[in-house]
């Protein structure tokens, strides 16, 4: 869906559901996932329907993912960090995660 204009900038590795992806410093988690070609970042808590980021500016809440064990983070507002563990959020969030 998206590709990078160029390859400059520091790269780093995150995992998404255990699979490593390459990201660049300055990426947000949502954008890193889009650039890595990941189709959807969550399924909805109401009907378990797949969703992906829609607005990339923090208002749609469709980019919710679990980051380093904490659920319902807006991926478009979180800058990537080396070694970050991202998980797609399936359905309702689990209390305690």
């Amino acid at each position, binding site marked *: 869906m998206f590709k990078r204009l160029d390859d400059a900038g520091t790269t780093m590795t995150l995992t998404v559901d255990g699979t490593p992806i390459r990201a660049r410093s300055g990426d947000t988690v949502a954008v890193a996932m889009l650039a890595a070609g990941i189709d959807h970042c969550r399924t909805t*808590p*109401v009907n378990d329907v797949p969703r992906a980021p829609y607005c990339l500016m923090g208002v749609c809440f469709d980019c919710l993912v679990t980051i380093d064990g*904490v*659920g*319902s983070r807006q991926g478009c507002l979180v800058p990537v960090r080396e070694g970050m563990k991202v998980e797609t959020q399936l*359905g*309702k*969030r*689990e*209390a*305690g995660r």
Partner: protein
Amino acid sequence: MVAEAYDVAVVGGGLVGVATAWGLAREGCRVAVLDEGDRAVRASRGNFALVWVQSKGLGLAAYAGWTIRSSNAWAGFSDLLKQETGLDVSFQRPGGFHLCLSEKELEARANTLKRLHNQPGIVEYKTEILDHSQVAKMLPDIGPEVVGASYCPLDGHVNSLRLLRTLHTAINARGVKYLPSHRVDAITREGGEFRLVTSQGEVRAGKVALAAGNANMKLAPMVGLEAPMKPERGQIVVTERLRPFLPYPVVTLRQTDEGTVMMGDSKEESVDSRGLTLGVSATEAERAVRQFPLLANVNVVRTWSAIRVMTKDGFPIYDESETHPGAFVLCCHSGVTLCANHALTVAPMIARGALDKSLVAPFSARRFHVQEAG
């Protein structure tokens, strides 16, 4: 062209009003429900959705019996609604808890229950005081600060917003005329019928049932009745949807059938429903996290406040007018718990034209004068 008079005009489109209207329609009455507009202060949109029995009736023993009657009728009531509308209001009665976060709280709770169950004429039902480990057997996620709780197997909860919608759907299907933005400004009785002057014209009916919550205080005298109310504000904190973890309602914390967790409860004298006191929400959040530590990182997506419909002594008022025969008033705080009674017991009384004193005499507003004289 002058419209025909209705058999009953119900004033108020909240849970008390629409449950009564539904019950009246089932009895064959032609009913109109007069309601305010979208921004009205509506307790039916701001309640905790409990169908609650424990600790009700301290000060008026009959209230406990009245409550249990409704609680026992609730499952059948919800089935009837489901048959008619296809909508499931998710009524559940697994029993409920009142959690205590200190020995002092637990002692106070035990005392309240003791006093309640010692009242003459009180109906007998079980409420136990449990210690931490007993509570933990049923609520494994409670935090270490939970000292104990009172538990009553008759407590339950429902999806109260869906209940409101379901009742509106049901009355619509039964031909009840719903008139929003028809605030009632005056009621008179002429030529054997009632004339209600509303913000959008006059409505005529053979009988009137006032179910307008706190506004009953202003409306009741128009038909020779009284409804002394003492509204107060409560605030609620609501979380995002979560996977089910809490099968029992707690009196100040419950997980809805949609997965969200609601937390309360507070009491402030303000009656500004648009206002919110942050420190109150913070206290509710703090107690919730102490009761269920796994909720600490869960997101709060909403807080709101609502004005409780509260009579002067907290107990319901059901009355029929002597000076204006055919006028009835219904006031209560527990519009959710008592919904089954209003639909299945009180509505038929109104349809027949008289309240059944054997059931509701203790709830007449005359009790306020007796108390004052005594």
